[in-house]
């Protein structure tokens, strides 16, 4: 027996539970949407190594330090590394995925407008980590 009214405590418990459920549901839903790769997304193999990025398109075209994509198209990155851990990051498009030797991690994005954006390594990977950068070049759609 508490010896006093406990309803404010139950209100508090209820509000906390409701807030946690709401926050969890919102975050879970956004994560689910963000991880859903659309059909027809072009696969680009991304390889990180000290201290540059290599990209391989579906047609076999390779690029080093630069990545050319088209606006309005979806791309699925298959990210891996050759030597040590890196992290593939396009800050402007909120793309961030660890590049780990022996593993392939996937992340997708769909650029909306033509332009140039920074690519960078987000995991300290050695002496020249600070300069392990690349350029994402979003071009006008072909058709």
């Amino acid at each position, binding site marked *: 027996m508490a010896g006093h009214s406990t*309803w404010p405590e*139950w*209100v508090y418990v*209820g*509000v906390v539970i*409701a*807030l946690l*459920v*709401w*926050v969890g*549901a*919102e*975050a*879970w*839903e*956004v994560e*689910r*949407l*963000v991880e*859903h790769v*659309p059909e027809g997304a072009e696969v680009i193999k991304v390889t990180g190594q000290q201290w540059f990025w290599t990209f391989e398109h579906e047609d076999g075209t390779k690029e080093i330090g630069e990545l050319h994509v088209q606006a*309005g198209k*979806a791309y699925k990155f298959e990210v891996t590394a050759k030597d040590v851990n890196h992290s593939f990051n396009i800050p*402007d*498009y*909120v*793309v961030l995925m660890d590049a780990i030797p022996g593993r392939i991690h996937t992340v997708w*994005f*769909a650029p*909306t407008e033509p332009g140039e954006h920074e690519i960078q390594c987000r995991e300290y990977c050695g002496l020249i980590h600070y300069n392990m950068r690349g350029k994402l070049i979003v071009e006008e759609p072909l058709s």
Partner: protein
Amino acid sequence: MRSIVGLFVIIVILIIIPSIDYAFGQEEPGKYLDRRALIWNLFFRMMVVAFTIGAVVSGTLFWLCWRFRESNPKAVQTKYEQAGEW
């Protein structure tokens, strides 16, 4: 007890069921998503929640400290203090 049950029913109807419905009721996305918008919107929503709760909790603490300080004219001594035991 009935009021507690009633309160929970209201919370469930107003918050929990819409949250679950929202989470499960979404159709598969047929178009490309702008992950920037999704992620930043989530971030801003969560910040609104965090700052609101932070303001309420810290405001309550400030009020508690102010209201129950010893020098408050409205302060009432505990029975131990009145008896000089503490």
